[in-house]
């Protein structure tokens, strides 16, 4: 399908058809000899916020970094199993990793803006930028900054260095940069952990907005946050998925004792 350069306007009644589901099957990951992920089988649904929670070191980052193959270059990384994005097996040798990453974008824990201007940062990941006119570029910058609720704050200083923004603004800029590439799936690895509560709320609102168009996979340590935004919840512990399901089910009716304890923030020994 062809995609326009600007923000897609969602027709009332018609469901957009861009986002894709992610299915992970029997995934095992090793770093060297350490077995980090064990037999992971999860699915992340389209147009939902899929939230991964779990204690530190349980392998959440490793899992979502496997979805866009960011682990490929890590020394000692070895993975077995299948991951399907939009029906395609992305673990196969023949996949073009760069193209995959355009479809599956990622936002990191700490905002990482490039030492360039705000607008250059938004456009940073865009391909064939040379073919676009200045007007078109500006349009893209505006659309994506509006989408991430930054436009009002920075529209008057688009040519300032991006590092002059506050951390929360930088993180939203990073999200805008990721969205400009027009991915189908957006992976967010603890995007609010270096932000203050107000900025965190802004990012949460943003996610709720984004799920209309994208599949979102979201890692968080903050249980309240998961309760606020998640549709689908995955609880990981010690390299395995303990339980997954809808938010209602996991919070109110968990099958496992461990899940109940963790989500109630009681002491739990994984």
């Amino acid at each position, binding site marked *: 399908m062809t995609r326009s350069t600007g923000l897609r306007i969602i027709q009332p009644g018609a469901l957009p058809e861009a986002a894709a589901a992610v299915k992970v099957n029997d995934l095992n990951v090793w770093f060297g000899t350490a077995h980090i992920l064990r037999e992971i089988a999860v699915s992340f649904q389209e147009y939902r916020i899929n939230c991964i929670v779990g204690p530190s070191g349980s392998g959440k980052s490793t899992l979502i970094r496997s979805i866009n193959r960011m682990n490929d270059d890590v020394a000692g990384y070895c993975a077995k199993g299948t991951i399907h994005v939009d029906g395609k097996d992305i673990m196969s040798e023949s996949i073009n990793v760069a193209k995959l*990453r355009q479809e599956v974008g*990622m936002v990191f824990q700490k905002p990482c803006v490039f030492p360039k201007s705000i607008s250059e940062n938004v456009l*940073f990941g865009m391909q064939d930028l040379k073919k676009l006119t200045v007007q078109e570029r500006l349009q893209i910058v505006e659309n994506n900054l509006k989408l991430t609720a930054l436009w009002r704050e920075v529209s008057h200083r688009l040519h300032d260095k991006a590092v002059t923004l506050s951390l929360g603004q930088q993180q939203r800029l990073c999200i805008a940069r990721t969205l400009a590439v027009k991915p189908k799936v957006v992976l967010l690895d603890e995007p609010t952990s270096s932000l203050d509560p107000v900025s965190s709320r802004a990012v949460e609102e943003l996610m709720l907005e984004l799920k209309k168009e994208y599949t979102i996979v979201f890692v968080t340590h903050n249980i309240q946050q998961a309760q606020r935004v998640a549709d689908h919840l995955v609880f990981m512990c010690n390299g395995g998925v303990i339980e997954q399901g809808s938010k209602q089910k996991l919070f109110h009716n968990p099958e496992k004792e461990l899940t109940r304890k963790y989500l109630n923030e009681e002491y739990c020994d994984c």
Partner: protein
Amino acid sequence: MSASSRIGKGYVVGSTFLSAAMILVIILFLLMNSWDAIRQTGLQLFTSEWNPAQDKFGILPMICGSVAITAIAIAIALPLGIATAIFTSEVLPAGLRLYVKSLLELLAGIPSIIYGLIGVVFLSVWVEQAFDLQSGRTVFTGGLLLAVMVLPTIVTLSDDALHHVPQKYREAAKSLGFYNYEVIRNAVLPIAKPDIIGAALLGLGRVLGETMAVMLVVGSIDRIPEPFYNVFVPGQTLTSKLGREIAETAFGSLHFSAMIFMGLILLVFVLLVTTISLTYFYNPEDRLYE
């Protein structure tokens, strides 16, 4: 203050003064000894004929030679060095990198006279045969030899520059769907650029001041080539001229003074380049390579 304290302080102040004054003393002596030539020959110094017997001291051929050799050496060593640094820093596994780096440091320490020997025995012969010349001792040979000589320095400094770029920028760029070369071109190189420029300038300063290797292969003819861009003829640089001729000139003569003037010009050039290069480094003190 006790006696030992006073003596101690005297010692440290004295040695600092000596160390700091040294470069000024060197400049002062060069200036004093080239004064005769500056006063008596004046602007004639910047003409193109050098003939001590007729009191003609034009140093233009030597300046041209130095510039030409430096340009050739940098034009070869810089692209090759940066590409190799990209390889050692971005492609090579971290475990191997350490060995390669130590090897490069050792190579960077090979005395220049040995490069000269290799130039005389191999490189000049090859150049002679490859380009069918009367003599292989040419400006080009000198440039090529110096390119090989600064290569380890440029590679290891550029490698450091690339390696100091935090990993997060690479990850961020990769996650946007960049190919490896786009990650390097768009994210890594722009951030490493000041340090790489610093490395290039440092290499340039080295090439400009190098004496022994050049002296043995450059051919030592004090003439500007015809046409000036013909590098396959013998030439002369400031350094090779000094190395060959200064011991044969009488102290105090106009000839000697003109030679010292060349030394002064060389020193000014090199100090200019190294000062600029230091300002490019983020932290010059950490980056002072022997």
